């Protein structure tokens, strides 16, 4: 396997290990009083930029959708609490799906399997995200407007 792919696999594991803290931060920002949509949007913006770079497109898709919805005022805090909570349920499910990948062996010989597993999980999450976004009109509208 290309040595670069081995390095990327290592970085992907490190990246996944930051997800729990990222979710904690996002939840704190979403629940802040008074609400500050711009700060939450910034945090989502960062994850939207890094997720796909780490070949986790589902992270980019879901974070970008909520970021755009917040910036366009289509989702307002706390008025759209149920939409945000539903979004978090998707994010948690995605996070745990990626985290389960880290249970696999981390040796160089397993890098090919690792990349295949990341692609498989991400592909499945993208499909689920598509269905989820369709069920959330405020998120879908923001995507269309962007």
């Amino acid at each position, binding site marked *: 396997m290309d*040595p*670069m792919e081995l*390095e*990327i696999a290592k*970085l992907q594991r*490190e*990246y996944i290990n*930051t997800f729990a803290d990222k979710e904690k931060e996002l939840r704190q920002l979403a629940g802040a009083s008074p609400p500050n949509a711009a700060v939450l949007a*910034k945090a989502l*913006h*960062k994850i*939207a*930029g*890094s*997720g*796909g*770079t*780490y070949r986790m*497109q589902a992270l*980019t898709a879901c974070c*970008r959708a909520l970021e755009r919805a917040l910036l366009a005022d289509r989702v307002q805090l706390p008025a759209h609490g149920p939409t945000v909570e539903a979004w978090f349920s998707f994010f948690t499910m995605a996070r745990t799906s990626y985290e389960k990948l880290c249970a696999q062996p981390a040796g160089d010989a397993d890098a090919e399997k690792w990349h295949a597993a990341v692609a498989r999980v991400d592909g499945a999450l993208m499909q689920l995200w598509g269905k989820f976004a369709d069920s959330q009109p405020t998120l879908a509208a923001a995507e269309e407007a*962007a």
Partner: protein
Amino acid sequence: MTTGAIPQTASLRILLAEDDASIRAVAELSLTRVGGHNVTAVTDGIQALEKLKEQSFDLILLDIMMPGMDGFETCKRIKETAATADLPVIFLTARAQAHEQQQGLSLGAVGYIIKPFDPMTLPAQIQEVLEKNVDGKQAA
């Protein structure tokens, strides 16, 4: 300090300003291992300006949304300083809206690379932006 010239297909001295550690790590890996470039990474615009006083670079990659001093302000200051005014600046950003791209270009940046990016092709994307900029200058 800068040399001003852009060595084509050569190893570049790149200053990367990016506050997100995960993006910094993968961009550094890509630029050094795939691109064969020399990378100095900093976490915000103020550090970038300080580093520019100390070292020579061929190119600067700037995130836009950084704490302290954002990428737009950093680019503006780079272009206002005689020693760095000719240094090519490329924004590496998840901001993709047209008016934001226009804002960066009006400040003197030579182009944008949108995050997420593919670490295997980031150096090629940079080369493409630089070549387009050279072609544009020649055509003008």
